[in-house]
């Protein structure tokens, strides 16, 4: 089994998704829930095992169908991809658990779809083949489309319609990009592509460049990078919060793909094309941060606020990716984990708070008093402090780190003020939200029948995300070391190529 | 007319035969393997699809059926040549028209076959089968059924009707014994 370990994060969700459609899971609510949660836990631990394996034996290359790269499809499990897989599966546990409190019955197939989404995300993280990446993008997208409509209302339908159409166009562009790249390089295995790119000459260089830049559009769309971020706020704000929490990982898929493509294929060795996307990414990222911050101040509901926080985090991440140094990537990795978890937590909080404020839901206006102010208040405080980037939680480590790494980047003098002001905006926005939601109420509590107290699965799910913040801060030492290791692995061109093309020997 | 076949496993012998031939045609081969496979399919597929078949009268006179088939094929060729001439000739000569052909056939499959033959042979196209079930009360049987056909160049309506009834409908009645 150990030899197949790197395949489990893909296999298990697929199995889970399918079996949950079959009797008895298909028919019995209770059994389905238990099964779903158990399976997601199993997947999580499998991913964890893979992470440890990679830690000990280094990069694991899994040649599917025993066809070695570049001819077959290989899965490449390295420190970075496995870390993200763990993150994804953890979110999976959280969301299946949280939804089991009742959200999952607000539409059909919640659990199977969730597992399929995880399947897609894990696949995207692990695959070493560009076209296979496309396939997994589609898997996660189609699953996300359906989840987006889960228990949705009219606003939701509109957002979904726009989201779907945008992404269909995105996928088409993805295919064009792949077409160009294949037409020039004669291969779509990323490692092999990297090799071919480094040997390009003549006009082929520019054709490859087109491919690379078109990929940038695709990833920017997936990652919600300005000016292609426009779909995100409404989509995330109208999706059911538990779904939005799950989606917290999806923008990161786009960012991850950027990391892979622009460090491996168009990285240092790419001759004329090396770091071709760098400056684009950098300026887009900055713009994204700015707009995200504006959005944060403008938000009228906690969900919208969180959606905009996602945008800010994407901008920050991409800025780090754009620097394309090992250290910056390391910072990016740490920040990625931190931001994903905290935004997910905020979405869940928005849901719980909304449930206790009746018709006011999570609108940032004075409304009913919250039933469980202590519990939710403490969670919110932690989440807020984390997302604002104040000590003592993970946020401040991330902030210090990324400021440190951006210090010597070109145009740092643009990034720094922008980022600091954006952080202030986040501080103001989040504080306002918290103060309003918890303190500014008309001392009226909802009648018992309207009240929805937090129940056990929900609180467990939430706490998993909440405790991550202090833990990531306490163990920042080892974590940062890991991130650095992962980053250097990511940047080590030759090692990667040899490793993948030689089938991991 | 007979609706039930002799053998349970062969509900529609003609169809099975057809399928048997089709398989061999598709694979361009008479190898033992394919003969076996063809037989199996010719039996299995009709059984599988029997739920999707409404009970239809079976062919009682295969020989006659074959002869009728050849006749129709011949007519198709001649009819096509006629139509080609009509089409290429001047339009203003053409005298199109709608004709209502009273039917003695009652079962849907024979009617379909008749309608198809009419569409394929002399410059005629089947347009409607009156009356529609929708215009009958539930459970009521139609008093008389008509076939509405469009004729590209109608010289003698009655002659055409007779032609259709004698040349195409009568044999069908005999073949299906209905």
């Amino acid at each position, binding site marked *: 089994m150990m030899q197949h370990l790197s395949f489990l994060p893909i296999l298990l969700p697929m199995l889970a998704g399918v079996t949950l459609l079959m009797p008895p899971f298909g028919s019995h609510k209770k059994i389905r829930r238990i099964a779903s949660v158990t399976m997601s836990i199993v997947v999580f631990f499998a991913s964890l095992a893979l992470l440890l394996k990679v830690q000990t034996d280094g990069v694991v290359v899994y040649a599917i169908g025993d066809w070695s790269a570049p001819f077959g499809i290989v899965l490449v499990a390295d420190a970075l991809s496995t870390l993200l897989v763990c993150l994804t599966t953890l979110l999976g546990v959280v969301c299946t658990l949280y939804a089991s409190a009742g959200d999952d019955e607000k539409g059909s197939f919640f659990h199977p779809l969730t597992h399929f989404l995880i399947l897609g995300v894990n696949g995207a993280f692990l695959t070493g083949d560009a076209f296979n990446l496309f396939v997994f993008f589609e898997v996660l997208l*189609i699953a996300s489309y359906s989840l987006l409509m889960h228990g949705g209302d009219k606003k939701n339908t509109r957002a979904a319609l726009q989201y*779907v159409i945008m992404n269909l*166009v995105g996928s*088409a562009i993805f295919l064009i990009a792949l*077409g160009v790249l294949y037409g020039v390089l004669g291969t779509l295995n990323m490692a092999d592509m990297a090799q071919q790119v480094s040997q390009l000459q003549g006009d082929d260089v520019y054709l490859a460049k087109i491919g690379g830049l078109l990929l940038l559009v695709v990833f920017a769309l997936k990652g919600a990078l300005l000016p292609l971020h426009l779909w995100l706020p409404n989509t995330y704000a109208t999706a059911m919060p538990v779904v939005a929490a799950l989606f917290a990982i999806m923008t990161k898929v786009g960012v991850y793909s950027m990391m892979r493509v622009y460090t491996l294929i168009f990285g240092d060795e790419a001759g004329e094309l090396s770091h071709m996307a760098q400056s684009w990414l950098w300026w887009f990222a900055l713009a994204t941060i700015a707009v995200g911050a504006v959005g944060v101040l403008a938000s009228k509901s906690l969900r919208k606020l969180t959606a905009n926080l996602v945008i800010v985090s994407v901008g920050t991440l991409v800025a780090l990716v754009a620097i394309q140094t090992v250290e910056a990537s390391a910072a990016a990795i740490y920040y990625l984990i931190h931001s994903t978890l905290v935004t997910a937590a905020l979405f869940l909080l928005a849901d719980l708070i909304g449930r206790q404020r009746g018709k006011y839901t999570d609108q940032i206006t004075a409304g009913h008093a919250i039933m469980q102010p202590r519990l939710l208040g403490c969670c919110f405080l932690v989440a807020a402090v984390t997302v604002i980037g104040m000590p003592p939680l993970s946020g401040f480590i991330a902030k210090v780190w990324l400021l440190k790494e951006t210090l010597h980047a070109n145009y740092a003098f643009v990034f720094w003020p922008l980022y600091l002001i954006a952080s202030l905006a986040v501080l103001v926005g989040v504080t306002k939200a918290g103060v309003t939601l918890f303190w500014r109420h008309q001392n009226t509590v909802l009648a018992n029948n309207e009240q929805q107290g937090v129940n056990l699965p929900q609180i467990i799910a939430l706490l998993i995300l909440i405790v991550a913040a202090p833990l990531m801060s306490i163990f920042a030492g080892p974590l940062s070391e890991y991130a650095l290791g992962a980053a250097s692995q990511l940047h080590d061109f030759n090692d990667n190529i040899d490793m993948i093309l030689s089938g991991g020997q | 007319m007979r609706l039930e076949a002799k053998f349970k496993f062969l509900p529609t012998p003609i169809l099975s035969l057809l399928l048997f031939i089709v398989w061999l045609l598709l694979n361009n081969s008479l190898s033992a393997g394919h003969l076996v496979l063809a037989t199996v399919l010719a039996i299995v597929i009709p059984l599988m699809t029997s739920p999707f078949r409404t009970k239809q009268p079976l062919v009682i006179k295969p020989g006659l059926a074959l002869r009728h088939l050849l006749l129709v094929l011949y007519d198709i060729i001649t009819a096509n040549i006629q139509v080609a001439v009509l089409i290429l000739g001047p339009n203003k000569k053409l005298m199109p028209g709608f004709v209502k052909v009273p039917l003695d056939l009652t079962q849907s499959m024979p009617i379909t076959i008749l309608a198809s033959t009419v569409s394929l042979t002399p410059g005629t196209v089947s347009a409607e089968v009156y009356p529609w079930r929708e215009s009958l009360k539930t459970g009521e049987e139609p008093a008389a059924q008509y076939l509405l056909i469009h004729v590209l160049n109608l010289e003698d309506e009655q002659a055409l009707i007779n032609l259709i009834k004698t040349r195409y409908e009568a044999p069908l009645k005999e073949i299906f014994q209905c």
Partner: protein
Amino acid sequence: MELLYAACVGLLVFCGVFLILRARTFPIVLGLTMFSYAVNLFLFASGRLSINKAAVLGYSADYADPLPQAFVLTAIVIGFAMTAFVVILAIRGRADLGTDHVDGEKTSQDKKVNV
């Protein structure tokens, strides 16, 4: 021939994109379908054009590049799934929003839906 082929691809892109930029769901779906035709032809062409060299062993001396064909096949299937979904979503949108306008804006026509 190459030029003609490229021209067709270009034209399909043109028509597809124009339709995608319309305001109503149905034209957009048409556009997406046409756009994906274009994309499939494009992806297919990345293996270059070759005549009567189908990649079936034993049927010719040398063969067309089979890999892009496999890619396009996958792309077609996925495209079909996506189109199906967006079509149904369009119906859903009409039902929920009372209009088939992608921005959910109601206009005179939508008011007098003939139901």
